């Protein structure tokens, strides 16, 4: 299974499924909680100068709490604009490292790499590394002081790095980008403030945001519309967990090899209102800061899920924790309802699904709720960030930022085509007004440069699947109406190292319960241990953050 760059937002969800948030480093070197006061932020944040080149076919829709849906485009402009004059680079050589989910392209004879390096006027030596094991590679790079010049780190891989300490290895970009300084890089200036805010640790601007939007979420519930239609089910009628449970019965036909659900536990977090990774803390009605493990919704969700698992409505492979095959199960119709990141709902998914079954149609349910009041906790605007090595000189940093300015060229520009598709005729051709990768292109073009920095992510036609764009944009416009901020939203808090290990037993326990290996009643005992082993102290730590820095609302 190859993940495309556009499935990126899905990765936040993937990370959520596997990552374990923890902090590390020892007390001596710790630089504090990582977060930054509002006053400091105001001084640090770059000035925002939007530069939308093309009018969106489906414009962005404003949602709740400042969130907004992505603009969608049905056709690439016939005459792309140039946003960068001259060549940004000065012939420098830089090593980069980015995660990659999928086959790593060969660097030798790669026309796409050559084309982009030529266009940016510098040699970026790309070293993509397996995204699934990225969090195991990073600590050794830090420990061995072998960081590349330009490295990307996903937010969900920061937990075991003690990030307030890790950033000291990176260049402070504040002097180059804060306030009006950013105007030297117009495409960077068009990055919205909410994305820059995610890039600040310890009162300094360190990161460059990658794949950000006003509608970043961990994941949601998807269904096979074609299968539901055959059973006479209208997805819009599904509004509560009970409705969903009824589908469990109706859609499962084990002897025919079909089950209603894949492992949808994280996806039902939205329905039962418990936060899923990277979000952990929320504020309850009484104003108390509570962890995911303490939310009442979590126990309801465990009850709901265990009932489904025991009734045989969840695919057995999902109950055997074989998450990596979830997409295949969905494509082949072995499950009718699955949970995934929103990035899973893209043109290439439709292409893969239709290859298995021509009537394949993925759709997302409109947000469900227990009480008729749906709500969804949003992820930080950017889920990934890239960093420049602190060892680079001022001139080198400027060169890299000029390159970043090229890579961040918006949709509708010439540069965007080069960065995302390479050379026309070699790596891509225009089909019905949209770029489509050629066979060579699909081998050479992987998410590499794009993982260093991106323009604000638009919704675009992939693999010629126009209808998917329309459906997705409509769903997202509806979703953002219910958007809410969890506690400490986008604040980059680094938890003290000693609480690193208390999370793992809870992750294991929740899995035991939802897969039906332990009764739901076993939960309270685990929670008590969690609190005693540091959960309550961790809350006190966050109380302190709340009083000094607020809760990011």
């Amino acid at each position, binding site marked *: 299974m190859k993940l495309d760059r556009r499935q990126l937002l899905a990765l936040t969800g993937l990370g959520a499924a596997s990552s*374990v948030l*923890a*902090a*590390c*480093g*020892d*007390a*001596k*070197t710790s630089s504090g909680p990582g977060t930054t006061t509002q006053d400091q932020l105001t001084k640090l944040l770059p000035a925002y100068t939007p530069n939308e080149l093309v009018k969106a076919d489906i414009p962005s829709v404003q949602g709740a709490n400042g969130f907004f849906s992505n603009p969608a485009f049905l056709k690439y402009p016939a005459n792309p604009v140039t946003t960068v004059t001259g060549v940004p680079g000065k012939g420098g050589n830089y090593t980069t490292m980015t995660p990659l989910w999928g086959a790593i392209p060969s660097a030798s004879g790669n026309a796409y790499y050559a084309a982009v390096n030529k266009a940016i006027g510098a040699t970026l030596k790309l070293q993509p590394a397996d995204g699934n094991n990225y*969090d*195991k590679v990073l*600590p050794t790079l*830090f*420990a061995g*002081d072998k960081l590349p010049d330009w490295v990307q780190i996903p937010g969900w891989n920061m*937990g*075991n*790095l*003690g990030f307030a*300490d*890790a950033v*000291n*290895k990176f260049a402070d970009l504040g002097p180059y980008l804060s306030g009006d300084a950013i105007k030297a890089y117009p495409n960077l200036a068009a990055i919205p403030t909410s994305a820059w805010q995610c890039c600040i640790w310890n009162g300094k601007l360190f990161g460059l945001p990658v794949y950000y939007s006003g509608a970043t979420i961990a994941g949601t519930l998807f269904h096979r519309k074609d299968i539901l239609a055959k059973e006479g089910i209208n997805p819009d009628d599904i509004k509560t967990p009970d409705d969903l449970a009824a589908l469990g019965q109706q859609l499962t036909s*084990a*002897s025919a*090899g079909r*089950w209603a659900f894949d492992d949808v536990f994280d996806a039902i977090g939205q329905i039962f209102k418990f936060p899923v990774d990277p979000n952990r803390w929320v504020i309850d009605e009484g104003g108390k800061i509570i962890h995911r493990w303490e939310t009442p919704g979590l126990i309801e969700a465990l009850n709901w899920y265990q009932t489904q698992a025991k009734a045989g409505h969840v*695919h*057995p*492979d999902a*109950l*055997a*924790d*074989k998450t990596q095959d979830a997409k295949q199960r969905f494509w082949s119709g*072995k499950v009718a309802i699955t949970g995934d990141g929103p990035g899973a709902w893209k043109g290439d998914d439709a292409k893969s699904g239709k290859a298995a079954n021509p009537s394949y149609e993925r759709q997302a349910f409109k947000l469900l709720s227990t009480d008729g009041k749906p709500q969804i906790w949003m992820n930080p605007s950017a889920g990934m960030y890239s960093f420049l090595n602190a060892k680079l000189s001022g001139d080198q940093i400027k060169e890299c930022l000029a390159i970043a300015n090229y890579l961040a060229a918006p949709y509708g520009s010439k540069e965007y085509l080069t960065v995302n598709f390479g050379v026309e005729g070699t790596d891509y051709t225009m089909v019905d007004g949209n770029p489509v990768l050629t066979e060579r292109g699909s081998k050479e073009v992987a998410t590499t440069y794009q993982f260093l920095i991106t323009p604000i992510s638009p919704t675009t036609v992939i693999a010629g699947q126009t209808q998917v764009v329309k459906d997705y944009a409509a769903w997202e416009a509806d979703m953002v109406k219910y958007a809410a901020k969890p506690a400490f939203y986008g604040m980059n808090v680094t938890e003290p*190292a000693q609480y*690193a*290990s208390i*999370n*793992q*037993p809870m992750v*294991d326990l929740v*899995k*035991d319960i939802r*897969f039906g*290996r*332990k009764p739901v009643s076993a939960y309270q005992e685990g929670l008590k241990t969690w609190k005693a082993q540091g959960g309550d102290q961790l809350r006190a730590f966050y109380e302190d953050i709340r009083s000094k820095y607020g809760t990011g609302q």
Partner: protein
Amino acid sequence: MTALHEAPPALRPPDEKPVKKSRFKRDRSLLLMVIPAVLLLIVFNYVPMFGTATAFQRYSIYAGFWHSPWVGFETFRQLFSDPLFWSALGNTLMLSLVQLVFYFPIPIALALLLHSIMSTKIRTIVQSVVYLPHFFSWVLAVTIFQQMLGGAGALNQFLRQNGLGTFDAMTNPDTFALLVTSQVIWKEAGWGIIVFLAALAAIDTQLYEAAAADGAGRWRRLWHITLPGIRGVIVLMLVLRLGNVLTVGFEQMLIQRGAVGRDAAEVLDTYAYFYGVVNANFSLGAAASLFKGVLSLLFLLAANKIAHLLGEDGLYRR
């Protein structure tokens, strides 16, 4: 007459030095061949051993080995007070024991069986077939088991379609020990017979002929010639296995931990992985591994001692 019993000068052991020299001369090419392996061993096995010192530190990847503070046995105190660690140790020993009882005799039996097949053609075919799974990765092996025995696997779908009850062997914590042992048998037993086959080949066939001439049947020959002939190798393999008693397939456990849960599948190696690497408490991971290493060494020495007491060579000749 005494002169007759005196060895001729050429056979008399010469002085120490010339022996070493001549032996070196004789073994020169062998020693040269061994150098790369020794270098690898030094670089990848001995040098990293110094890393276990982090078990006595509060290791930080930013402070590094040289600047992380020393905390003595603090990490070990933390380790030994963690009930999850003891449960992991318990699982490790239990799984090891089950594998020792059910897995260890299989390659021996298979080797005896293969040895008794006369047709070399059939022997080669059987041998190739049972070898093959050894070259599969654990991911693939577990996937094959999932496809066969899983809740949606071939067996259960067949049962379901015929209106019979199903049994999900892949997610049942109670039968997990048997599951992993059968996986090990399927994957490794074929590979394990090689060393026993070699030992069997070394037995002088004249012994069999003589015994047969004396009227010994198949079982008598097996009992009085074959088994004594490979006893040394069996004991050696057993000693080595005991030295590895705390190592029960890290990958195999890691892949299936989610399917049966921590309580059944957490072993020392996965514990060190989750609490050491995943949660970035490298000192704790190092402490758990050091504990495992020391214990394994003790097991190995004890098993070797017992082998010597039983009059076998064990790891080395005394």
